[in-house]
C-alpha cells in the first residue's frame, strides 16, 4: 500500500512537522506546548513517513535505533535537574541566562529538562511502534 501522493507529501511534511514540534517545545514555557506534546508531534512525523515509505526507510533517515534516544533524553533531563546542585542550590532549581537569545527567547535549565522529555518521548514511541512493525515485516517474510 504505497501511495505516491503520501510519499511526496511526507517529503515536505516530515521537516515541517519536525520544525513545528521543535517550535512547540520552545514555546512551551509561555504558551500551549512543551516537551511532551512536541515529542508526540515529532514521533507522528516519523510514523507518517514510515507509513508512506516503509519503516526501514524511516530507520535509514534516523540513522540509529530510536532506542538510543532514550538514554540521551534521560541524561539531558538528569543533568538539567542536577546542574543547580553544582551551584549549591537544591536540585530542579531553575537557572536562567540573564539576556534573551534571539529567535529562541529566554533559555533556562527547565528548557533542557523539557528537551530531555522531548527526546525520551520520541525514543519511547518510535521504539514501541517500530519494533512492532518491523516484527510484523519479518514475520510476513
Amino acid at each position: 500500500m504505497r501511495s505516491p501522493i503520501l510519499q511526496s507529501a511526507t517529503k515536505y511534511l516530515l521537516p515541517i512537522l519536525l520544525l513545528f514540534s521543535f517550535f512547540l517545545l520552545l514555546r512551551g514555557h509561555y504558551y500551549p506546548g512543551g516537551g511532551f506534546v512536541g515529542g508526540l508531534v515529532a514521533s507522528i512525523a516519523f510514523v507518517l513517513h514510515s507509513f508512506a515509505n516503509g519503516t526501514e526507510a524511516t530507520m535509514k533517515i534516523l540513522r540509529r535505533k530510536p532506542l538510543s534516544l532514550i538514554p540521551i533524553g534521560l541524561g539531558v533531563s538528569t543533568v538539567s535537574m542536577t546542574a543547580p546542585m553544582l551551584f549549591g542550590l537544591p536540585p530542579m532549581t531553575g537557572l536562567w541566562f540573564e539576556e534573551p537569545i534571539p529567535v529562541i527567547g529566554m533559555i533556562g535549565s527547565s528548557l533542557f529538562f523539557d528537551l530531555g522529555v522531548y527526546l525520551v518521548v520520541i525514543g519511547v514511541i518510535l521504539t514501541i511502534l517500530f519494533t512492532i512493525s518491523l516484527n510484523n515485516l519479518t514475520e510476513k517474510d
Partner: protein
Amino acid sequence: MLLAVLSGLIISLLIIPFGKLLTTKWSFLLTLLPASLFLYFMSYVPAISAGSSFLQHIHWIPSLGVDFDFRLDGLSLLFALLITGIGTAIFFYARTYLKGYIFFDRFFGYLCLFMSAMLGVVLSDNILLLFVFWELTSISSFFLIGFNNDNADSRKSALTALSVTGLGGFFLLAGLILLGNIAGTYTISELIDARELILNNELYPLILGFLFMGAFTKSAQFPFHFWLPGAMKAPTPVSAYLHSATMVKAGIYLLARFSPILGGTDYWNYTLMAVGGFTMLFASIHSLFRIDLKGILAYSTISALGILTFLIGAGTREAIIAASVFILVHALYKATLFLVAGIIDHETGTRDITALGGLRKVLWPLSIAGILAALSSAGLPLTYGFIGKDLIYEATLHTEYQPLGWILTGIAVLTNIGLVAAGFMAGLKPFTGALPEKFANIHLPYKSMWIPPLVLGILGLVFGLLPGAVGQFINHATADAVLGSPSDMQLKIWHEFNLVFILSIATLLAGIIVYFVNKPSALKLQAIERLNAIAPQRIFTRYAHDIMRFSKWYTNLFHNGYLRSYHLKIILFAELLLAYKLWISGPITLDLEKITTPSFYEIGVIVILIGALYIVVTTPSRLTSVVAMSVIGYCICLIFVFYSAPDLAMTQFTIDTLSTVLFVLVLYKLPSFINHTGKAILYRDGIIALSFGVIISLIALRVWSEPISEEIANFYGENAYILAKGKNVVNVILVDFRGIDTMFETVVLSIAALGVYSLIRLRLKSTEKE
C-alpha cells in the same frame, strides 16, 4: 572510616567491568584490600586501648534520621580487625582455592561486598544505617552460600539462610524503629543516654523480643540454628569466613552493642542465658555425632555462638571479658579448622572423618595448623583457648544469679567437653593414625593455601603466650565499650591453682576421653537425625512449602497471561475502590441551576460521540471499532478545546493518533473479526463497562457539586512567572514545580519501551532457534 567501609563496595563495582583481568595473575591485587584495611584498623589500636573512640558524621538523609554516622570503639575495633584480618587470610586462600573457576571474578565481587557490609554493621553508629548493612550481609551471604548455583542443594541452603536471616531482619527493623521512636534518636551513642526512658516504656519487652529475633536468626541460636549447617554447601573459604569471624558473629555484635542500652534487666539476662545455654549444649552434643568435617565444625560453631550469647546474657564484667576473649579465640581456631578442612577436601576429595587418617605424613604443615587449632579449641594451657575457657568458668561461677551458678557452670563444662572432643575430631583425627593407601600420593597444595591456616593457628598460640598484651590492647577496650566503664582485670597465662583451674583440666581430660570413646559413624548420625524430626526445622520447611504452594495458586489465578483478564481485574478493583469511596462520602446534591445550557457545537460533538460509541460496540470488525474509538478520542479533544484547555487538547489529539496507529499495527496479529465466546461474557463485560462509566460520572458530579478549593490553583497562577519565569502554568508545573514527577514518568515510559523492545526481540530469537 566511610571510605574504609565503602572501599569493598567500590571494588566489587569495579569487578563488573574489570573482572576478567582478575583471572590472570593480577588477582593478588585483591588481597591488598583486606590487608590494607587491616593495617588501617591496626593503626587505631593504641588510641582505642587508651580509651578513646572515633566518630565520623556525614549527612545522608537527615530528614529521615538516617545519616552516615560511624563510630570506632573497642567493640567495633575487635570486630573490624577480625573481619579484615581473617578476611586477608581468606582472600589469599580463596585465590588459589578457586583458581581457574569460571566465576572467579564474581566470587570476589560477592566477597568484597560482604566484607564491606560487615564492616558497615560493626562501625555504624546509626541504627537504621546498621540495619541497611545488616540486610546487605544477608543478601551478599545468600550469593556466597549459593555460589555453586548449578547445585540444587546449594541453592536451597542459600534460600533457607536468606529466609531465616531475612525474617529476623524484619523483626529487627521493627524493633529498631520502635526503639528510635521512643528515644527520639537513631544514634547509638545517644540511645545509651535514653536508657532509663526505654527501660520504663511499656513496649520494652516487645523491642527486646524483636531485637532478639534479629540476633538469634543471624547467630543461629536454637530454634533458628538449622540454616547454619545447611550453609556448609558454600565453598570452604566462604564457610570459614562466614562462620568464624563475620556473618554469624553479627548477631553477637548486635547483642553486645545493645547491652548498654537494653541490657541488665531480667528479661534480657534470663532470655539470653536460657537460649544461649540450651543452644550451646544442644549443638555441642550434636557435633559429636557428625562424620562430615564441615558438619562437625558447623555444630561446634553453633555451640560457640551459644556460649557467646550466654556470656552476654550473664552480663557481668567477667562474662563480658570472657566473651570478648572467646570471640577472638573462636575466630582464630575456627577459621583455621575450616581452611584445613577445605584443603583436605580439595586434596583427598572426601570430608568423611571415618575415612581420613594419617595425613600428617603428606600434609605436614597443615597438620601443625590443624593440631594447634584443635588444641586451642580444646583449651590446652598455653593456648589462647585456655584463657578463654578459664574466663568462661570464672564468669559462670561468679554470676549474680548465685543459686544458678553451679547449674550454669555444669552446662558450660558439659558444652566444653563436647567442644574439646569436636575440636579434636576436626583438627586431630584426619592427621593421626595410619595413612590409607589411596591418599599416599597426595601433594601439598600451593603455599598460598596452607600458609593462611598455619599463620592463624600459630597466632592462637602466640596470643595464648602473651595474653596480657592482647588483652590490654583489644579485649579490655571491647569490654569497656560494652560495659561503659573501664575495667581492670588482667589476663594471665597462669591463674592460681583454684576451682576454675581444676574445672579446666577436668574438661580437657573428659573431652579427650570422649574423643577416644566416641566413634561417630553413619549409623549413629542417622539415629540423631531422627531427633531432628521434632526440631523446628520441620515446621519451617513445612511453612515454606505452604507459602510456595499459595504463591503458585495466587500467581496462576491473577497472572494467567491474558491481557483481557488483567484489564478486567484492574477495572473491577478500581470500581470497588471508587464505589466504596463514593458510598462513604454521602449523597450527591445536584444544583440544576448551575448547569448552563449546552451550545450548538457541544450538542453536535456529543451526538457524534454517541454515534461513534454505538459503532464501537456493535461492529463486527476490529478495524472499524478502532477507527470509531479514535473518533471518540477526537470528540473529547474538541470538548477540551471548548473549555479552553489547549494543552490537554493537543496532547489528547496526538496521543489518540498514535494509539490508533499502535492498534492498527497490533491488529495485524489478531484475527480480523471479533469472535465472542458467548452471551454471558458479553453481558459480564457490558455490566462492568457500564458501571465504570456510571461511577466516573458520579465522581464528576461529586467534584462539580463540591466547593472548589482554589488555593492550589491560585498558588500556581501567582507564582508560575515569579518563581519559574513561565507563563504557561501547565508546563511550569510539569517542568518545574513537579519536575521530579515528570522525571520519574519519563523513566517509567522508558522502561515500558524497553519492555516492549526486549519482549519482541526475545521472541524473535526463540523463533530463530526453532
